[in-house]
């Protein structure tokens, strides 16, 4: 060994972080997402005002130092409502993505491992679920069980299942012909074990990117459902419902409709940018194209 040997190459993690910080979409998306999540977490400990406390004398006030985003028709502070509403949006979207992944990924990887008839049946099942947009399932569920946040979660979750099944299946199908899979099979490993040990880690990046996209879509869907009154019920504040309540008062207080909408746009924009950035970082094929 000579003292002037070339320095060892940086560990891959550092390399990845460097690339991540150079990716504009990823950085902006991550910052926005972290801020929104922090706002939702903060609301558990502190909000500027107590939103269960109605001050009718203060209703529909414009922007001021005391109420930076104004107050609503019941005198509640809009900033506090938006902070607590973030919890609802995030919770619904996370659980809906969890349902989609929890059911869709096993189905998709199973179909890819088995092929043949099971694969065909699964793909037809996907077509079937795609024929029911989340809103339509939500409407059917609400017609029977009445409105509520849980029903919104189930409806959006059901719609996520075929999305993840498709992504997992396509990803798994591209891994199965690889040589190390052949080696694992020759070593006598079962298809289930190969799926867990080799397929899943290799498609995790794909699933993460899709998860971010579905998270953003879930927030939009939840807002739509609660705007129609099919989501979270009062007194739980939700961004969609705040917009519904703002609509009839728009002539007198347009600011009521501005901020909950901006909250949705910024959150969804942040998640989409994060998803785009992650895809660039995790998909080497796309990285080279840039």
């Amino acid at each position, binding site marked *: 060994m000579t003292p002037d040997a070339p320095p060892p190459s940086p560990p891959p993690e550092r390399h990845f972080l460097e690339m991540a910080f150079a990716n504009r979409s990823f950085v902006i998306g991550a910052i926005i997402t972290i801020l929104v999540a922090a706002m939702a977490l903060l609301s558990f400990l502190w909000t500027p005002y107590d939103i269960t406390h109605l001050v009718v004398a203060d209703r529909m006030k414009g922007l001021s130092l005391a109420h930076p985003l104004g107050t609503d028709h019941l005198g509640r502070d809009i900033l506090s409502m938006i902070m607590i509403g973030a919890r609802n949006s995030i919770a619904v979207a996370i659980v809906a993505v969890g349902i989609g992944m929890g059911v869709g990924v096993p189905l998709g990887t199973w179909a890819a491992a088995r092929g043949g008839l099971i694969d065909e049946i699964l793909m037809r099942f996907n077509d079937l679920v795609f*024929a029911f947009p989340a809103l339509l399932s939500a409407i059917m569920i609400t*017609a029977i069980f009445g409105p509520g946040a849980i029903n919104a979660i189930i409806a959006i979750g059901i719609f996520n299942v075929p999305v993840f099944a498709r992504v997992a299946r396509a990803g798994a199908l591209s891994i199965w012909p690889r040589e190390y899979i052949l080696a694992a099979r020759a070593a006598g490993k079962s298809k289930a074990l190969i799926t867990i040990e080799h397929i899943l880690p290799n498609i995790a990046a794909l699933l993460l990117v899709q998860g971010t996209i579905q998270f953003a879509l879930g927030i939009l869907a939840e*807002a739509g459902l609660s705007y129609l009154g099919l989501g979270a019920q009062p007194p739980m504040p939700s961004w969609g419902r705040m*917009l519904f309540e703002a609509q009839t008062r728009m002539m007198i207080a347009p600011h009521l*409709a501005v901020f909950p909408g901006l909250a949705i746009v910024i959150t969804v924009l942040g998640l989409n940018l994060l998803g785009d950035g992650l895809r660039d970082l995790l998909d080497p094929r796309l990285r080279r194209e840039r």
Partner: protein
Amino acid sequence: MLAFLAKRIAIGLVTLVVASAVVFLVLEIVPGDPALLMLGMNAQPEALAALREEMGLNQPVLLRYFGWIAGMALGDFGNSYTYSSPVLELIGERVLVSLPLALISLFLSTAIALPVGIFAASRRGKPADTISMGAAQIGVAIPNFWFALILIYLFAVWLRLVPAGGFPGWDAGLWAGFKALLLPAIALALPQAAILARVTRSAMLEVLGEDYIRTARAKGMPRRIVLWHHALRNALIPVLTILGLQFAFLLAGTIIIENVFYLPGLGRLIFQAITQRDLIVVEGVVMLLVATVIAVNILVDIGYAIVDPRLRTRR
């Protein structure tokens, strides 16, 4: 081509039958007694018995199911409990609002998205590309009903150019009807256009990297002809896929947008039917929407075969 068509339609029909079983299961079996659900706990026993009789709840489940789909196949969707008129008649009136709304917004979103996507792809990496794709990124994040509220505020409340909501009916003249549908159609079209523009751009970029494009340019063919004639046709396949998928979202979107603008369309009909627990109307409209989504997907597949002749034989 004929065999391909036949197979595609057969798959569509099977999907439709399974979908009808799902709808029947959710709306007629899960509630236990749909008549009781519709009339509520305090229903008069006579009214309950009459509704059970009318809905055929005294018959075996399988017979009820087959009676239901046979009826729909023959154009009998049952009678609405709250409107006391045939569901098909209600649907017929509402389709005249929802279908034009969906078609106008589909036209608007395609008319905006294709040129923007192609333009951005042809100016890849230049400011025009960055600006238009940045705008598309924001457009994707805007909920259509919030955009609708902003449009109402700007164009109806502030500028007073169009009505803030409601529908005068086509009897009031084509222009009056169109004016009432214009803002809702724009609100529906924007997020769709943003997604479509992004897909068009990336599909075009993929195609523009192909060898035959370089060959065509090397032959001295004008850039414009290569772009519009050679590249666009090949880029259309992913664009068509997204258009087909978007149609389902467009139908769901009409449910929200019709409620924002108080338009008497299918979306408002199904929404009011839920609040009144009129399950017969809910069933009918859901089946109609599901059938439409399936039919559109078949049309998209036929569209693939027309755009790309290779796909006709491959299947």
